[in-house]
């Protein structure tokens, strides 16, 4: 392999309208690609279906975070009030789920929210300081008035010639190779 030549990141196709992008996304979805994405200046309703995106997995992180928070909250109150330093307050038992509930509830929310944030970052592979697409000049218009679809070279189904032909069949305005 020639060490001077840069490594290919993927193929970037540019579209003029959200509808074109949506049809292209449907086609790419039906070809079973997995490492690809679309970029648009605004959210496009129905794009999740067009891309074949499943429900996000972030919910599982939230659930695990929330359950941990609930358990930790109850255990913490039990440990403090009934085990480590038993204290009678207001004639109440050393431990009761009643008065530990507000604490457990708050920790459920706190750890649930943290789980959501961390899960989101993890699934998006964040933090990441750079994405090769940002070097591309025309890609800047993804925040303005153009619509983009990129298929990454790391996709198992990626083949420079075949994928380019497939992208051409979706009638983009242009197709560019993006280097790492």
């Amino acid at each position: 392999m020639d060490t001077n030549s840069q490594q290919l990141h993927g193929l970037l196709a540019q579209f003029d309208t959200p509808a074109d992008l949506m049809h292209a996304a449907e086609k790419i979805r039906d070809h079973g690609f997995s490492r690809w994405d679309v970029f648009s200046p605004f959210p496009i309703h129905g794009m999740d279906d067009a891309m074949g995106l499943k429900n996000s997995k972030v919910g599982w992180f939230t659930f695990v975070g929330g359950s941990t928070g609930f358990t930790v909250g109850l255990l913490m109150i039990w440990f403090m009030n009934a085990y480590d330093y038993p204290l009678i307050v207001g004639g109440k038992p050393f431990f009761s789920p009643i008065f530990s509930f507000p604490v457990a509830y708050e920790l459920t929310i706190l750890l649930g929210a943290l789980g959501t944030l961390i899960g989101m970052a993890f699934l998006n592979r964040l933090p990441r300081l750079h994405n090769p697409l940002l070097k591309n000049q025309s890609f800047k218009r993804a925040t303005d008035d153009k619509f983009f679809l990129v298929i990454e070279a790391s996709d198992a189904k990626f083949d420079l010639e075949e994928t380019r032909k497939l992208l051409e069949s979706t009638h983009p305005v242009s197709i560019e190779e993006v280097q790492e």
Partner: protein
Amino acid sequence: MSEASITLPKEVKYTSQGQPWHKLPSLSLIAGVVLTVVGFIFQPGKQILFSYLQAFMFFLSIGLGALFLVIVHHIFDANWSVPTRRICENVAATFLPTLFPLWLPIAIFSGQIYDWMSGDTEFAVALEAKEAWMNTTWWWIRGFIYFAFWSWLSLYLRNLSLNQDKDGSSRHTHVARRWCTRLILFYAISLTLAAIDWTKSLQIGWFSTMYGVYYFAGSVWVTLATLYMFSLLMKKEGPLSTLLGTKHFKAMGTLFFAFTVFYAYIAFSQYFIIWNANLPEETFWYAVRDVGSWRGLGMLMIFGHFFVPFLVLLRIDAKLNTTLMVLVGLWAWLMHLLDLNFIIMPVLHPEGFSPSLLDISTWLMLFGLLTTLFMKSFRAHPAFPIKDPRLGESLSTH
């Protein structure tokens, strides 16, 4: 979305005939009446009054819950709730005016249901302090005021909506919004006072500022379950089949889930504050409900009314699983009825949970009567607001 892209069904009324479930209301009414007579023969005395009160409060929940959904629809100017609004309008406008005469048996026999009315109560001191408000005359007048208000509001809001069907003017939407933003306050006050008058005053010595909102939370919860199930039915066979989609069921399911949590929040707060303060004049209400099998029913409320529906409804895809949602909806009916049982019946049966045939028969009777009237009214008008300004928006998939 533009007006032009709306395709309305040719037949906007619900005309389906001969579905197996159409016989359900009349069968339920007949069975209810027969079983009530049989039940009363086997169990004469106060049981029939308390069972009837329980069934009455159950259907009042759905009537007031439906009225609430109409009110919030107008206030928030939502678009997802447009196709299902006519269902709620009809539930409110048939249930609430019908429950008015159905309340009279409770009022007539109130002396036997509410011990404070006869003065034969262990809370004579508390009653003396509350007498300016809690006296029989004023209790009767209040009942008339609540029903006059609810009946008027529900009929008025439905009329605005039906008039809009004819002329398509957005003025009706604005008028409805203006009334609803002002009257929701009176809705909240009347519901709270009614709950206090008709169930809380069974134990006149008790205090709880959470009581009205507790009844409200359970009411809207069971109404959302009912609305979801009826919408599913209408999607299957009515003119709503082309109108209702994932978006609407997701919204109803999410709201149902939210009220599961809201109910638990209110119920827990009420318990927690009383448990923490530990004052005998408040704790006795729970102490009575800690005896024998009442304790088990209380536990069922924690787990069956909250934890199970909460965990089942947590996932977004569960809210779209029709089989699961019907099961949870029917479960919500049972839980709300048992919740009312937990509130009402310990007064009559301090020894423990005592289900009676009359509990079921009075429920069947009211269910049969009210759903018959509802279906009649639902068939008579278009099944959804056909010229609502937000209808087009509501029909877009996202």
